[in-house]
């Protein structure tokens, strides 16, 4: 056998053709499932493929999708963030309280995102420096942040947003070129996240920490700092969603985003984020969110009680993890 040139060696890898590469990804099959569900619903119901319904689906899916981007980063680094629903509401409350007091949008938005980043930083510091388990820290934060949102708003509904009222509603509820704004923002954030995962050292380090934290420490990766940044990233995504969701709903109460963490975790895990750490993609988070929203929508359209939603979301998490275990055992 002739000795291969250096270039040949460099470009060799264990992957074979493009098709084999694509079909070996969980994400491909999840995407196909979502497409199939959409086709089935279009045929089975008159109401799915209407403009109004699709508009709602895409917007709802965008909210879950944005937070799932942050959750994917956390899960890929080997952690978990249960506080995203509460971060969402504290962000929503902050922007609402400030705007309803007559302040401009930009001030409310900066304050809301600032508070969200602070929530993430507290989570991150307790996890990375105090070395507390992510599950415990973010479970505590789940309670604390929502309670603070209640304190902040005196648990009243807010639906007057001062001088920039219309802008806020346009930002969260409007559309450009027929595309709902949350969807556009989700696509932009997904592209940025995908880029950061793949092309920034931050992404490399985050996946290294999730893959083998000990190795990351030994090779001098600033593990604690990266972890803090990952929880801040997750909180920022939840904070952005909070601001958008107020605009969409046109009002906010303190039960906004309740139980959302499970839906988001399910979306990330279905999209290929590995709860053991070290795996996950931005595209996967988006596709996972899409599948969940399509199925949620189908329950409504098919006249099945929405009480079943929790059963689906919970089962999805377990099935996705079981699927992952099964694949690992095979290889």
């Amino acid at each position: 056998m002739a000795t291969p040139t250096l270039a040949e060696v460099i470009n060799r890898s264990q992957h074979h053709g493009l098709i084999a590469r694509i079909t070996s990804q969980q994400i491909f099959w999840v995407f196909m499932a979502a497409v199939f569900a959409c086709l089935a619903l279009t045929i089975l119901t008159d109401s799915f493929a209407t403009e109004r319904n699709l508009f709602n689906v895409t917007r709802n899916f965008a909210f879950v999708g944005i937070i799932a981007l942050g959750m994917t980063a956390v899960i890929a680094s080997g952690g978990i963030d249960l506080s995203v629903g509460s971060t969402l509401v504290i962000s929503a409350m902050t922007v609402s309280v400030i705007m309803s007091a007559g302040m401009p949008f930009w001030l409310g938005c900066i304050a809301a995102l600032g508070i969200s980043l602070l929530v993430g930083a507290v989570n991150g510091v307790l996890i990375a420096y105090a070395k507390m388990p992510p599950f415990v820290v973010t479970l505590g934060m789940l309670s604390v942040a929502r309670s603070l949102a209640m304190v902040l708003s005196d648990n009243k509904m807010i639906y007057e947003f001062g001088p920039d009222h219309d802008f806020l509603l346009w930002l969260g509820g409007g559309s450009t070129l027929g595309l709902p704004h949350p969807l556009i923002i989700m696509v932009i954030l997904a592209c940025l996240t995908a880029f950061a995962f793949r092309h920034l050292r931050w992404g490399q380090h985050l996946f290294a920490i999730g893959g083998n934290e000990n190795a990351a420490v030994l090779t001098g990766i600033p593990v604690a700092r990266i972890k803090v940044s990952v929880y801040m990233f997750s909180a920022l995504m939840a904070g952005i969603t909070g601001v958008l969701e107020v605009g969409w709903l046109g009002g906010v109460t303190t039960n906004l985003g309740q139980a959302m963490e499970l839906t988001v975790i399910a979306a990330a895990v279905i999209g290929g984020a590995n709860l053991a750490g070290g795996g996950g993609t931005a595209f996967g988070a988006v596709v996972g969110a899409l599948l969940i929203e399509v199925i949620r929508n189908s329950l409504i359209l098919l006249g099945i009680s929405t009480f079943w939603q929790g059963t689906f979301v919970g089962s999805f998490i377990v099935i996705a993890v079981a699927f992952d275990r099964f694949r690992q055992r095979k290889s």
Partner: protein
Amino acid sequence: MDQQIWGVFMNVLELKNISKRYGAIQALDSVSLAIAPGEVVGLMGDNGAGKSTLVKVIAGNFAPTSGDILISDKKVAFNKPLDAQKAGIEVVYQDLAICNNLSAASNVFLGREPTRRIGPIKVVDYAFMRSKSAELFARLKSETRPRDLVHKMSGGQRQAVAIARTLLSDAKIVLMDEPTAAISVRQVAEVLNLIRQLSDQGIAVVLISHRMPDVFEVADKVVVLRRGELVADKKASQSSPEEITGLITGAIEHA
């Protein structure tokens, strides 16, 4: 290799009375050791004797409880692995410190990924990482492919990934924690060859191994740890596997 050959009369690394405690466990007890440029030192000892601990102290993973470390006759204090790396110390860890979910190239450059600028942002330079690691694997005569996930590799290939890392910088001293455990005979010979190659370039190597033949094949000097104490520091040519075995088990008290 004799230090006079290098025309310099200094040690690349010197340890003075290094001790390390883990709570009640005295993992290292006043260990003193000097290593010359290009010298290959075989570090031996029973399980739990403190070999890995000594390596981690030298590599800056944690500070010794007491004692001094000197690099090229200058006292140093390492707060983190990067400090030791900057001083020219490279390590191949016992568990290899490898991430299974990343490619071979990413693992070689773990923690020091090269970047290039695209406008205001710095992106990881994958092309350079691949070509440079392919070159290093070629130097190691390893058939490891830069783009493959480490997850699917053999023990020898994983070893090559970990050793390739040490060749990235201008190391003065390479610490290897059991590099020949769990790899094939052919690859043991390759690793030993690599050690000689490093030594010829003036790089000192500390080789931790339980395999007596490997140590006697490459080492200039053999040191033995027993329950955290340094009980022997001898030229390999003036010792024998039998004597070293006695020193490890305690059948021979001191040498």
